[in-house]
């Protein structure tokens, strides 16, 4: 065990430039993946904020008894797609209109009769904020006799659906491409390290070291490089994040950093590539020598 660690660390000391180069290469490869993940996470967060505004509004016929509305509210709250139902009375609707629609304030001020209907505002649960589910809820709402009209901004939601699909697909493709490029670059880097030590492997074989023993230090070295490269990528990504957050326009929109699970996943990805790359490269050598 001690020997394993010594041999793995020795290679850092004996070839500091190559080691630094491979850690940097791994770091930058993972940084590209990290940057992409950062963009993807923030895009998803932005979409999520927009999605939260997806709601269905059912306008009620005037004169609907409060008990009926209360019963219906309970009923609708029990829909699997529905998160929350809010009753907005006629008076409240007018108050809101006065507060929110400033340019029509004068028109609303001197009304003798309130022209606005009462309504039920229905918030959708996460995962149901798409066109199909919203339309299904709207259709069910129209079934109530006291519901005059149902609105939910169909076009807007459909656009949101499309945007979500495109973002998902593009994200997956680019993400996989970035990851594949990282795997290849890191694999080549590690192969160079192994080639540089081909003589050592040959000597170990010659004197009767077992394959497992020969692999050990290389695997540890590969894993360490992956770990350090992951650390470099983390620092670079965080630096970039701070830089962007420092920009005034972006500060207000609240960009977020990757959560700890994603970070851990990224670093583990680095370690896994380091290990896998070493295993493949050394394995090839063990067959050839």
């Amino acid at each position, binding site marked *: 065990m001690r020997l394993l660690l010594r041999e793995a660390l020795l290679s850092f000391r*004996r070839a500091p430039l190559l080691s630094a180069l491979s850690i940097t290469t791994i770091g930058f490869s993972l940084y590209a993946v990290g940057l992409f993940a950062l963009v993807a996470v923030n895009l998803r967060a932005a979409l999520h904020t927009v999605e939260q505004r997806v709601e269905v509004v059912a306008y009620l016929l005037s004169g609907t008894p409060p008990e009926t509305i209360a019963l219906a509210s309970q009923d609708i709250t029990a829909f699997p797609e529905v998160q929350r139902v809010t009753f907005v009375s006629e008076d409240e609707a007018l108050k809101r209109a006065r507060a929110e629609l400033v340019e029509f304030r004068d028109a609303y001020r001197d009304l003798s009769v309130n022209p606005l209907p009462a309504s039920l505002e229905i918030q959708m649960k996460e995962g149901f904020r798409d066109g199909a589910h919203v339309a299904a809820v709207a259709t069910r709402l129209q079934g109530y006799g006291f519901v005059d009209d149902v609105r939910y901004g169909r076009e807007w939601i459909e656009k949101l659906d499309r945007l979500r699909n495109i973002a998902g697909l593009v994200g997956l493709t680019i993400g996989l491409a970035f990851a594949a490029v990282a795997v290849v670059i890191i694999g080549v880097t590690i192969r160079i390290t192994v080639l540089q030590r081909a*003589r050592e492997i040959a*000597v*170990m*074989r*010659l*004197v*009767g070291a*077992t394959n497992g023993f020969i692999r050990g230090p290389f695997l540890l070295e590969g894993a360490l490089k992956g770990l350090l490269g992951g650390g470099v990528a983390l620092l670079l990504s965080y630096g970039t994040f701070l830089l962007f957050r420092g920009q005034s326009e972006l500060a207000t929109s609240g960009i977020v950093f990757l959560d700890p699970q994603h970070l851990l996943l990224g670093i583990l990805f680095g370690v896994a590539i380091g290990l896998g790359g070493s295993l493949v490269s050394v394995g090839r050598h063990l067959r050839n020598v």
Partner: protein
Amino acid sequence: MIRFAHVFKDYPKGAALKNVSLHVAKGEFVFLTGHSGAGKSTILKLMQGALQPTSGQVRISGFNIAELGPAEIPRLRRRLGIVFQDFRLLDDRTAEENIAFALEVTGARADSIPARVMRVLTQVGLAAKAHAYPQELSGGEQQRVALARALVNDPAIVLADEPTGNLDERATRGVFQLIREINASGTCVVMATHDLDLVKQTTYRTIELREGAVVFDSGLDETAGEPV
């Protein structure tokens, strides 16, 4: 100790060994001679399990090479000491570290290593240069370090592939003398060489190869045609 029975070895570009049969007894010294490409290196590679025979049987130190699994190669190699023309030392380790490396990677007890390394360094006459790097040593000294590395695991057989091929006359004499001493202490030695002066100096058994076949074996009783 070593037995070849009707061994053929084909490479993609042609046959390297054609029906080679030979027997080397425990403690024997055998020269393998012949021109480049005659099959000397192929025989040594078969002996160390780096190659498999195309047909025929190769047995060495209780191992059957044709049936050698990947896990058994290290076990075989630990019973052999192997030296080459180009020494194969690690440039970034001292003489002492090069020898210790062979013990470390074969799982020797750490506290036994320094004494064993010093013993073989003394045996090859290089105790004073234990801390020298290969590039600070002469060719003859480097080959001595390689020999010390080959001896440190107390091998039953030493395989030497042109061990003096890169050395001047004086260094050649020194290294050869050392190999003779190793044999005198009971270790079987198979040495490939095309230095006929070296061969003529001694009465050791000589096996001459030509185009992959044994054309002369001084160890055969010429009247009966059987190994001694």
